[in-house]
């Protein structure tokens, strides 16, 4: 439906648009981290795209890849009624992505959430603190190498004789796939 957005992006940015696809009918474009703010701004301001509505910003973790963190930005245009998903990829060692704080007001909380759960650092965000979890939480729980069973008790476990173990121990580790 919104193929013309992908075409428009490709003719404007050329090789800077690394990949385009339409999985299940939703248009997706992938850009490098450095082009992230420019492409996002173009999507908002260009009259053909006119993505005035911010829908979602989140992340997915693919530990098999070198640039394992994939940031998703979903936009919608009230006027044209089309939507697009813009992605960029960063590595876990250098998880910095330029912030889009100035472009849409709603970005604020969603970038904080992606930082909170995935550890993506949005450079330029003025108030990047945890939002769903508490200050002092260690690690980023939606990364695949964060064990689902891992506990971070605010009050430590009591020392008990070895016969009385708590119902769950510390990190057991969890496979992230059934492959």
């Amino acid at each position, binding site marked *: 439906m919104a193929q013309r957005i992908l075409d428009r992006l490709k003719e404007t940015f050329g090789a800077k648009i690394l990949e385009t696809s339409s999985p299940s009918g939703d248009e997706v474009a992938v850009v490098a981290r450095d082009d992230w703010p420019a492409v996002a701004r173009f999507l908002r301001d260009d009259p053909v795209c006119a993505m005035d509505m911010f829908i979602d910003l989140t992340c997915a973790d693919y530990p098999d890849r070198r640039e394992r963190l994939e940031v998703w930005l979903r936009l919608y245009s*009230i006027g044209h009624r089309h939507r697009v998903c813009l992605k960029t990829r960063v590595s876990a060692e250098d998880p910095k992505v330029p912030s889009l704080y100035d472009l*849409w007001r709603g970005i604020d909380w969603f970038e904080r959430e992606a930082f909170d759960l995935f550890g993506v650092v949005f450079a330029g965000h003025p108030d990047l603190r945890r939002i769903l979890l508490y200050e002092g939480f260690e690690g980023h729980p939606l990364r695949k190498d964060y064990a689902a069973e891992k506990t971070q008790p605010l009050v430590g476990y009591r020392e008990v004789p070895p016969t009385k173990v708590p119902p769950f121990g510390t990190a057991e580790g969890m496979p992230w796939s059934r492959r």
Partner: protein
Amino acid sequence: MEDADIREEELELPAEPMTLNLGPSHPAMHGTIRIVAKLDGEVVVSADVQPGYLHRGFDKMAERGTWSQVFPYTDRLNYVSPILNNVGYALAVEKLLGITVPERNQYIRVVLGEFSRITDHLTNLGAVAMDVGAMTPLLWLLKAREWIWEILEEVTGARLTHSYVRIGGLAFDLTDTFRDRALALLPRIAEELDRSLDLLLENRIFIDRLKGVGVLPAAEAISYGVTGPMLRASGVDHDLRKTAPYLVYDRIDFDVPVGEVGDNWDRFMVRAEEVRQSSRIIRQALDQMPPAGSPIDVLDTRVILPPKEDVYATIEGTINHFKLVMEGIRVPAGEAYGYTEACNGELGFGVVSDGTGTPYRVRARGPCFANLAALGRMVVGMMIPDLIPTFGLVNMIAGECDR
């Protein structure tokens, strides 16, 4: 002779900004949320809205079980209208699978979903009335909500957390008496709503508390990603049931109420009108629905559990059942974003599959999170007592906001 009066500014005490902590557990806060408001006298200078007190790790939990095992978690996202969450998740996974459910199933999803929408709106309207001091409408509207829960219980077996929808199907068909009971119920709900609105809409206190308070201009609402009744109250005609029709909404005639200025009054009226429109949708959907006995599940043994007779009588059925229960539905590798109009706005599920029976990533984009983000901006310059109904009409559901 010199004037002996003291000049006025000397009389005034120096105003000291004060910090007020609302919540996370406070009788006026619906759900667990904390608002740290900086006050100048009684006026809010800035507000730091802090969600997260009900964070359960929905996304992480979804990555542990099978695709079907996510349904109980979706019930608890927006626990006031669980069917809509069930439907949203099912549609996203079905989009990835590339299957469309039979017509009767689609109509059932619409009917029960709209009943869920009514329960949500009734709860919100009643709670806001209570926020500004009117207790009676809350009790009347919750009574009507209870009636709906009764018939939902008849169909799904549970009052609140239904887990009724399945990928490619439904847990069971409607009961024989459902249609009659639903049709008999709709006028009673309308009566209860009208009676409550009669108490409120010409009440001077109620009008003064809501009109012109908490204005959210359309451009800002769009930029915040605000969706649902809150966006429509700001004057934007955007309803996914109309702009991107899913299920059978394109065959049903209904109106989308739109506000004018985007204040609390508009938000209240939009929700009240949506209850009436939902009744219209339910009536039409019940009329158009294919008769009982029509298929409700897709004919695909890779998705739907085989009938019990086959499971116990044939080896193929046993294996099929075992594989689906133990390994889960094998969803082809890929990703999809399914979006539906939940009662508070766009409920999107971004699902990624790596080809196994376990979701690789399930992202729930709850409307409340974006709606609530706008609250911190809306309350600036507002009196503290106005913060409460403004917050009430955002209708934050903590389960969905914090996931």
